[in-house]
Each structure stands twice: as structure tokens, then as C-alpha cells.
């Protein structure tokens, strides 16, 4: 298990490229006024299975946690993310943004829980999971769960599943952009929110994987 604690008032950010066989269980605590931003990238092909579990708890008020994830899967790969966001103290903020691009007969799961006990007023907790399905055989599952017992909180969640937009595709092609390149631009655009601020090496690797989906 990876334990990560962000101390009082500090800010920490990291990008994790998930690898098959590596420990992908994260136990995270965020102290008062501390701020954490973690980005998980899962690039899976063949029969790879990547499964990541992230548990977050707050140790003091005013903690902030942003979790981002990008999974790009092809062949018969299987990727799952399980997030356990526990707002055990008042006035903490969390945001989850997980995006997936699926091809082949791959399968993905996003299972995200936001838990806000009754005393945790002033909580802000948001969760988004968006999936782009490139083939008929791939399958994305999303299980957003909100357990909110407190009043005076701001929480939201949203999950979407879609294909590359046909109007965008025709628009770009009508400008002379070849279809594969137009599709690539659409995928880069979809992923860009998660890739913002990610080190160049990992971005290059990720964009390289997108090319293989064309």
C-alpha cells in the first residue's frame, strides 16, 4: 500500500503512471488547509489488467483534494478505479475527474464513492467520469455513489458515455484535415483536461498510445 500524507498547509502534486503488477493501492490523508493534486494515468493494451484503489480522508478542516485520472484501453485490457472519498471533517473540498478512452474489447470500471457524514457541513465534493467509446465491443462501467448525510453541502456527480462527435469530425474534414488526424485531435481534446500540467514525457507517451487507436 502507498501511504501519502500531506501536512498542514502544504500543497503536493504528483502524476502516477500505473503499471501492471505494481502496487496501486493508495491511502491518502490531507491535513488542515493542505492541498493535494494527484493524476493517475493508465495506458493498457493486450490482456493487461490495471486496478487502482484510492482512499482519501481529511485530518483537518479546509483540506483540498483533486484526483484526476485518464485511462486509455485497447485490445482486451481491463482497467478499474475505485475511489473512496470520505469527507470526515467539515469544510473540505474534493474533486474527482476521471476520463476514459476505450477501444477494442477493453473494459473499464470507475467506482467512486463520496461520503459526507452528518456533521461535515460546508463540504464541497464533485465527481465526474466521462467515457469515450471508440468501438462496439468495448465496455465502460461507471458506479458513482453519493452518501450524503449532511445539509449545507455542495456535491455533484456526473457520468457520460459517448462516441466521437460526427459533426466535429465532418467540420474538421471539410477543412482538409484527414479523418484519422481529426479523430486524433478529438481524442487529444477529450484528454486535455486531465493532461494539463502533466510532465512532457508522460504526455508524449499518452499521445503515442492515442495514435494506436486510430
Amino acid at each position, binding site marked *: 500500500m502507498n501511504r501519502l500524507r500531506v501536512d498542514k498547509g502544504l500543497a503536493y502534486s504528483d502524476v502516477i503512471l500505473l503499471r501492471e503488477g505494481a502496487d496501486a493501492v493508495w491511502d491518502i490523508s490531507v491535513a488542515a488547509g493542505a492541498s493535494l493534486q494527484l493524476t493517475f494515468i493508465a495506458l493498457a493494451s493486450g490482456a493487461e489488467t490495471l486496478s487502482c484503489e484510492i482512499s482519501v480522508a481529511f485530518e483537518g478542516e479546509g483540506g483540498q483534494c483533486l484526483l484526476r485520472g485518464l485511462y486509455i484501453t485497447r485490445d482486451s485490457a481491463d482497467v478499474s478505479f475505485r475511489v473512496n472519498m470520505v469527507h470526515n471533517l467539515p469544510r473540505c473540498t474534493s474533486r474527482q475527474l476521471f476520463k476514459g478512452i476505450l477501444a477494442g474489447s477493453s473494459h473499464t470500471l470507475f467506482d467512486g464513492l463520496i461520503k459526507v457524514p452528518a456533521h461535515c457541513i460546508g463540504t464541497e465534493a464533485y465527481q465526474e467520469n466521462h467515457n469515450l467509446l471508440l468501438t462496439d465491443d468495448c465496455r465502460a462501467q461507471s458506479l458513482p455513489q453519493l452518501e450524503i448525510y449532511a445539509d449545507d453541502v455542495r456535491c455533484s456527480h456526473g457520468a457520460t458515455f459517448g462516441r466521437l462527435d*460526427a*459533426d*466535429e469530425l*465532418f*467540420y*474538421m*474534414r*471539410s*477543412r*482538409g*484535415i*484527414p*479523418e484519422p*488526424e481529426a479523430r486524433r*485531435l*478529438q481524442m*487529444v*481534446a*477529450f484528454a*486535455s*483536461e486531465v493532461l494539463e500540467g502533466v510532465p512532457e514525457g508522460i504526455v508524449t507517451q499518452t499521445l503515442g498510445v492515442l495514435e494506436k487507436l486510430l
Partner: protein
Amino acid sequence: MSDILLEVKNLHASVEDREILRGIDLTVGRGEVHAIMGPNGAGKSTLSGVLAGKPGYTVTSGEMLLDGESLMDLSPEERSWKGLFLGFQYPVEIPGVTNTMMLKSAVAARRKALGLPELSSAEFIKLLNSKLPLVNMDKSFLSRGVNVGFSGGEKKRNEVLQMAVLQPQLAILDETDSGLDVDALRIVGEGVNSLRSSDNSFVVITHYQRLLSYIVPDVIHVLYNGRIIKTAGRELAAEIEKRGYDWIIKEANEQA
């Protein structure tokens, strides 16, 4: 180089087995501006979509030639490389793809297809910046997502900007005037006019006469029920503005 740029012969096209175009004949000479007018549902947007290769339309018979070459089996991008440009009635918003990204990719693909050397980043930016004044746009537009959050007028100006960068032989402007206020109409009209030359042609599709007072056509066609039922000089626009389409439809019915 022939004097005829676009030749459409007896073009029939359907959407989901419903025939929309029922035998279009249209010849556009090089350097000419043709307007296609007509009531709602006449097939104006279908014609522009079919010419640009929009998926979803089936050409059931007829021909369309650009500079003597058939467009029929060409992809939308190949038509663009041949010099066809479609100005959209509803320009598409593409979040996450900036104007610069899209145009850079479009210019690079076009130059590659035409066997022209690649532009350096600096050359490309210079090209882009040189076109901005044409449509009264500032540089900040370039780094925004394509059409995302643009007003109606900004979207149409963006279409003209793309046209200016791609320098098509034939530009089809589909209801470019829809949703524009007078100022935006003037900017778009002036932008288009500045791109007119003896080498390129325009097909301006519109409901109303007002755009045609900015972009003055050589020829006006009236499209109705999937056919061109009248072709006349530019003076027809004012008459349509005054009398509507009914008399033209009636005239055509009497001839038939």
C-alpha cells in the same frame, strides 16, 4: 484551366431514402459569384452538404465536377484539398481544439496533399496573423477552442478567417447571414469581397436579399423542391425581397 469551375449535372440526392435534390443543374464559371435563394426546405443546405461530401447524403444520380474532376468518390478532406470550402450555417464548436491547432493541421494536410513544402511554425503564425484584420479578429481568438463561446457573428467571421487561410477555388457559403446583425454582416461581406478574384468562385446560399447587397452576385438561382426553377441576373434579389417566391413557383408550375 477551363473557364468553368463547378459543373453540377442532373444531381439527385436523398437522405434516408427521401429524395431532396431532384435534378440540379448548375454551372459556375471561374471568378463568378452565384447566389442560391429559395424558401425553407427547398434543398439549399442539402446541396451544400452533398457538394462538400457530408456523410448521410446519398447521391442517386447525376454528376458534380470541380475543375473538370468528379467529386463523387472523394472524401470531404480530398474535396477541400481540391479547393472546395464550405462555410457552415451552424459552425461547429470543438471544445479542446483551438483555432490555431485546427488551422495548423488543416494547412499542413493541404500543403502535403498538394506537394507543397511544410510551413515552419513561424511562417504559419505569420500567415494566420496576416488574415486576422480581414475579419476584424484579434489574436486571442486563435487560442480559443474552435467556435466555443463565440457569438453568432464571431462564428461566421471565423468561417471567413478559415476561408482566407485555406484560399479555396470554390467557396460555398451556406446561410452565412443567418443570425448576424448588421455590423457582423458588413464585416463578413467585406471579408468575402476581399477574397474575390478572377480565379475563385463563390456560391452564396441565402434566404434573404440583405447579404447580397454586400456580396453582389453575378447570377441568382432559385431553388425549390429540389430543383433550380429560375436563373436570372442580380436584379432578381430585389424582386424576391419585394414579391416573395410564390410568383416564381407559379411561373415554374405553369411552364411544367
